[in-house]
């Protein structure tokens, strides 16, 4: 088990390999469909200090506003990452992002982006909304809440021992690619 704390250096990221189990600590920035389109097309400057050497989490949480005006996360598991495939590599490069958390894995373009910039794809258990929300210690801030709506906003959170597995590394390795090929071969055998 490898403990990582954001911000993360490129050097730290380059040591990670597919299959490594990671417990992530520190700040994480949530973004999904609208946010990724926005980042690729508009490249807002104000996000740069928020994202540099940080980790993006593909997640649209269930949130609760507390009486004192602060927010809590009620359920916060990963959403399917492949929808961000057209944007992810550019986002990683533009903002020097070191990690992307999601589920289901991503494609070739993202893998190339991970290799080029020095970043990893970290897989979280899909559907484990309550379990993962428990590891969210604090909601630090939220950007674009009015504009994007709560599931799509840039939530900035602090996590403690957030359980993840490296499924795509910065050297071109991908567990998803491997499982896909094996299952395709098996499917051929099943349908002769």
């Amino acid at each position, binding site marked *: 088990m490898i403990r990582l704390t954001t911000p993360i250096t490129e050097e730290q990221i380059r040591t990670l390999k597919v299959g490594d189990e990671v417990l992530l600590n520190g700040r994480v920035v949530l973004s999904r*469909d*609208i946010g990724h389109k926005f980042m690729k097309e508009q490249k807002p400057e104000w996000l740069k200090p928020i994202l540099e050497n940080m980790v993006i989490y593909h*997640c*649209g*949480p*269930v*949130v*609760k506003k507390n009486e004192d005006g602060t927010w809590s996360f*009620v*359920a*916060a*598991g990963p*959403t*399917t990452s*492949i*929808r961000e495939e057209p944007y992810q590599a550019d986002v990683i490069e533009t903002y020097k992002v070191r990690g992307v958390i999601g*589920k*289901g*894995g991503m494609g070739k373009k993202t893998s190339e982006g991970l290799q080029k910039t020095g970043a990893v794809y970290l*897989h979280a*258990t*899909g*559907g*484990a*909304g*309550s*379990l993962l*929300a*428990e590891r969210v210690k604090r909601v630090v801030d939220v950007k674009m809440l009015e504009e*994007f*709506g*709560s*599931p*799509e906003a840039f939530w900035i959170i602090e996590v403690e021992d957030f*359980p993840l*597995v490296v*499924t795509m590394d910065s050297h071109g390795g991908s*567990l*998803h690619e*491997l*499982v*896909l090929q*094996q*299952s*395709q071969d*098996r*499917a051929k055998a*099943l*349908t002769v």
Partner: protein
Amino acid sequence: MSECVIPNLTSNEVVASKSVLPAGWKADLADLKNLDLSLPVMELLRRTTSRLPQDVIQAIVKGRDAEEVGSRAFNTLNDMVRNINLADGQVTPLCQDTGSVIFWVRHPFGLSQKATKAQIRAAVVEATKRSWLRPNCVESLSGKNSGTNMDPFHEHHPAIHFEEWDKPEVEVSVMQKGGGCENVGAQYRLPDAALGAGRDIKGVRKCIIDAVVKAQGQGCSPGILGVAIGGDRVTGYEKSKELILRKLGTANADPKMDAFEQELTKDLNTLGIGPMGYGGSTTVLGIMAEEMYRHPASFYVSISYMCWSSRRGTLSLAANSQPSYDL
């Protein structure tokens, strides 16, 4: 990390004690015109969003116990059981994607569908306010979120299907269908040359295998498949969803289809996709297939993929008794 987590759901008594319904609430089915379903439906949603059906939990545990102890597949299924326990204990959503909310209402003659629809919508709005449901209804082009789970254009969300029946009882089933698994559903038109799939059961089988391979872990495997053979583009998909209401482990009424389901489930679990696509032998928890009639020129195979967090439940209202919840 390798210990087997035991499913440990709160007792029905404790769940009932947290109900939003006033103690002793009973439905007056003699006065259908004034029946108000909003509170019992809210209670149904409180349960379905936080409490996985027993048959689904059993299937997940069975899958976990068949995986190698300490493997990624084992640990992932174990985490799923942990999440099930936690969400139930806290009464918080099992998954942040509380899904598109789909209702099936079965009712006797005399119930107003218009009034029922308004009551169900009110229940969904309130459940959203209480953070049991995430606001999951956005304008398609602008992406603007209505914030309430209501579709302001045409009232298409939540989807509500009505069926009048001859029984005196009223039943409301609900399914919370996540977007990730909805995206990996597929509809095939046979014959399909690329798949080499003809208009027969072998062809249907090829479609299902193809859909599961394409889905990989993206629909949050292990999944449950609803498969409608025939129908048209709309009725096929509609049926494929409704089929997922069937409990895992119950037999298909058609023995031939039952054998087909069981054999294919075994085969799909040799694909090696596993929980969340990490690899492993638990790729699907079950298949629910049904044959429909079709136009002679059309042969559709419609597949709905339900994630492992198969949130569904049924509320039953019988005369002069308290509402019962089956999930």
